[in-house]
């Protein structure tokens, strides 16, 4: 991770903490009456969404606008994409229009990496969810939320915190991004799912796997419930919705087994009554709404660090995140423009 954010695997501990700490400062902006910074004034950020996602797209858009970027929403529906235009041609079009960053959501795993490594587009690429691969900003906002509750303070990680991720791990980009990032931050991750929804080769992942939610909950500092789509039932991943809820759903009785300090998370959208009971989703230990708020701060931090958060002059645009401003002075060094036109046209 230097110019793009494609996978949480690209973030080392310093990168991850820099983003989390920067997000803390961004969070302060969001509490002001005027929730706006001039950092990305004059920069163009395109939200390129090949899949519907009102939540994520809106979160990015709010973040971009709070940084004063020019925001273009490019959704596949109603555009030339639905007429058969390829990813390549869409990217070439955005490049010709001068996009400084592209936030991409795509149904195909690897599409953001392909975009970042092609010569179709020269701006920064932010992965807003690709297929069943990764959703790095979601993992960052989850980690941000966990840190606030479990180990608050700038510069702190999640060392030794026990995080349980429950549900359809096989199809979850959120789970993949979380496992990688939480491992980097020192947390101990346990995946809980029926064996049919655990990815092949999970033994090589830096986490534990359990099929028994009741055994894991008492040893969890945070439990993250993943959405389970009902259509998985028809593909024989589990027999019935009822049986899934009985074995892997988080209801009040199960939640009572959690330690008192433990939080309940969900990346949304939830299927109430399926993987999580309403009374738990709405309970005091639920951070579900808070996660949405934190999402804006994290996305502000990521865009800021990728596009505007470095001390000029830069040797190359590739240096931004790792070579960026020191952690606690990020805002004070913010500049509306830090790259030259020449660098853009590389």
């Amino acid at each position, binding site marked *: 991770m230097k110019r793009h954010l494609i996978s949480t695997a690209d973030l080392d501990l310093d990168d991850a903490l820099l983003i989390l700490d920067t997000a803390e400062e961004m969070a302060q902006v969001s509490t002001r009456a005027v929730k706006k910074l001039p950092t990305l004034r004059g920069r163009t950020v395109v939200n390129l969404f090949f899949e519907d996602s009102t939540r994520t797209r809106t979160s990015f858009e709010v973040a971009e606008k709070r940084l004063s970027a020019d925001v273009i929403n490019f959704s596949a529906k109603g555009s030339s994409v639905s007429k058969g235009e*390829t*990813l*390549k041609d869409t990217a070439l079009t955005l490049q010709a229009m001068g996009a400084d960053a592209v936030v991409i959501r*795509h*149904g*195909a*795993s*690897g*599409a953001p*990496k*392909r975009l970042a*490594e092609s010569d179709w587009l020269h701006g920064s690429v932010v992965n807003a969810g*690709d*297929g*069943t*691969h*990764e959703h790095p900003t979601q993992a960052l906002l989850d980690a941000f939320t966990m840190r606030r509750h479990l180990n608050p303070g700038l510069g702190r990680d999640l060392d030794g915190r026990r995080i349980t991720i429950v549900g359809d791990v096989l199809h979850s*980009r959120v789970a*993949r991004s979380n496992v990688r990032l939480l491992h980097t931050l020192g947390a101990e991750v346990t995946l809980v799912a029926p064996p049919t929804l655990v*990815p*092949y*080769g*999970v033994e*090589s*992942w830096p986490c534990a796997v359990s099929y028994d939610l009741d055994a894991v909950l008492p040893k969890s500092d945070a439990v993250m419930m993943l959405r389970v789509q009902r259509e998985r039932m028809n593909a024989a991943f589990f027999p019935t919705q009822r049986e899934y809820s009985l074995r892997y759903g988080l209801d009040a009785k199960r939640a009572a087994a959690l330690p008192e300090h433990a939080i309940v998370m969900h990346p949304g959208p939830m299927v109430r009554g399926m993987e999580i009971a309403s009374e738990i989703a709405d309970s005091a230990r639920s951070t579900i709404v808070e996660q949405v708020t934190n999402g804006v701060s994290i996305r502000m931090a990521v865009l800021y660090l990728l596009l505007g958060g470095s001390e000029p002059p830069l040797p190359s645009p590739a240096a931004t995140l790792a070579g960026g401003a020191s952690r606690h002075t990020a805002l004070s060094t913010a500049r509306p423009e830090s790259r030259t036109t020449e660098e853009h046209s590389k």
Partner: protein
Amino acid sequence: MTSYLIKNARVLGGEPQDLRLKDGVIAEIGAGLAAADGDTVVQAEGLIALPGLVDLHTHLREPGREDAETVLTGTRAAARGGFTAVHAMANTFPVADTAGVVEQVWRLGRESGYCDVQPVGAVTIGLEGKQLAELGTMADSAASVRVFSDDGKCVDDAVIMRRALEYVKAFGGVIAQHAQEPRLTEGAQMNEGTVSGELGLRGWPAVAEESIIARDVLLAAHVGSRLHVCHVSTAGSVEIIRWAKSKGWDVTAEVTPHHLLLTDELVRSYDPVYKVNPPLRTEADVLALREALADGTIDAVATDHAPHPSEDKDCEWAAAAMGMVGLETALSVVQQTMVDTGLMGWADVAQRMSHRPAAISGINQAGPTGQGRPVSVDEPANLVLVDPAYRGAVNPDSFATRSRNTPYRGRDLPGRVVATFLRGRATVLDGELV
């Protein structure tokens, strides 16, 4: 007709000898042959002479996808790769499931003049796996089809497969199966393993190949017919084929060059140039395939040359077509993986890339049109001269195939085809098409 005197070629890697090619046959082999009137002398010091290579598995795309390849461009690529015969797969548009289509492909091959084109007929109408195509009519046609395959799709219905195996016994045919259990591979994007789990790409499990091969060797044994297994890609498949052969059953198998060299680790780039069916597997599979090719469990190397236009690869992984071009790099990959590693000698290469594949498809009969024949006097002068000392980066822009979807772009590979002779006529000289 031009005659050639090849000086000091190492036939099958042996001691240097001279070969005179005249009137379409090898007229003389010996030391210190003198150039006769009209002989074109080819200096072949340090070069290996092999019988013209025979590919059992080539997609020439014509008719229907002439934007990817034509019979002419495909056979030119074949000649550059050292091939003197290729088997054109049936998944064209229209499908080669009638005498009319296979005769068209056969005729286009004859007109190209660069190598023999032996059409493969479809097993079922439209490759749909429902109703047998007119296998006997294709066999009796001018194309004399003996190899039948729905390649690209698996003949997954056990009854249809059984009937096909039985039916082709009447005319000495063989069913070449693309072993892929369809339900286990719905939407599959790459080998199911550690890498697919990390990349979030839907897996193509080894068991989907192995379960079909296991069923088919049992069916072939039950009805007493011949089965050929296309592009074997897993260590488990090798074990099943080894077992079937140990029973004395009439089962043969091929492996592609790319499955001898590349692994699914390359998919981490999400570059669709590595997208192929069957998918690239693991290091353990690659090593098992090399061992099986060396010990004869796998009979032949077949390219599965699968040209695609750039727009079908210049996209995201899931949208990309499966397949790689392979004719022009096959011998180099075999040299690197099998010869330079000490697993096989050049005589073995001749076996796996010429004699055996020709025998499997039955085009090795004695006579002027025989392929995969010994390098001996009075045999058809189908020869390839290889420079094993050459080493260089693969440059797709120099390819004769119409497509550029090679996984070896920029990769250093050993060996270079210097000359190819088809019945005594040079199709390639000094590495260039004639």
